[in-house]
């Protein structure tokens, strides 16, 4: 199985952001312009980190931004934002972050196949570096094993 789709709108490469909030907000922008979530979902993702801390930085250089399933989610999907200058989230081990992977899922049960696929991709420790260096959407799709 591969990721369902990765529309070009869901990918933003080489962004320059001032801080982690802007990085997550940008990932929210990618999700909303790709029709995966409403614009308000960005604020939900930021709120999760404010509430629970930078645990979303689940591997060196990689933040998995996400919020709970809710009315802000329009479809199961992901967005990818890469940062030209990595930013700190305040994580004890995995800062600084160069890739923000935003995840939106409509229900808890439905997302296991999606995260299993993410595990297939990122259990290869070179995936984060490859994504951070990617210069085109096609390259990102190749790394993610995604179609269009």
């Amino acid at each position: 199985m591969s990721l369902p789709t990765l529309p070009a709108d869901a990918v933003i490469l080489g962004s320059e952001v001032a801080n982690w909030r802007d990085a997550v907000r940008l990932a929210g922008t990618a999700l909303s312009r790709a029709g995966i979530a409403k614009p308000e979902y960005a604020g939900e993702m930021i709120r999760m980190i404010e509430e629970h801390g930078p645990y979303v930085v689940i591997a060196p250089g990689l933040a998995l931004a996400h919020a709970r399933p809710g009315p802000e989610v329009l479809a199961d999907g992901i967005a990818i934002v890469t940062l030209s200058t990595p930013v700190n989230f305040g994580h004890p081990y995995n800062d600084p972050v160069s890739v923000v992977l935003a995840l939106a899922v409509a229900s808890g049960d439905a997302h296991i196949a999606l995260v299993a696929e993410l595990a297939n991709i990122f259990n290869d420790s070179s995936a984060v570096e490859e994504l951070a260096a990617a210069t085109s959407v096609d390259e990102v799709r190749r790394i993610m094993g995604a179609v269009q």
Partner: protein
Amino acid sequence: MKIVAICGAGIGSSGILKINAERVLGRLGIEADVTAAHLTSLESDAANAQVILTSPEFVDAIGKTNADIVIVENYFDTAELTRKLEAALG
């Protein structure tokens, strides 16, 4: 054997922990029921858990428990998970 993976949302990061823990346990030949949960559902989900997998941020919020709390640094590093699960279950 019951294992619970905890994150703030109960999706995403805890789902990845669940998937990778199941893979590691399968390789180790250990049968276990791994559940992804969030902090607010923790009390019911973790009632009989032997092991709780989580990030350093959640240790204080998890509070008192009979389960072994395993802190995972890199959710995609199955070697780390293998080492820590073996230590917790051994």
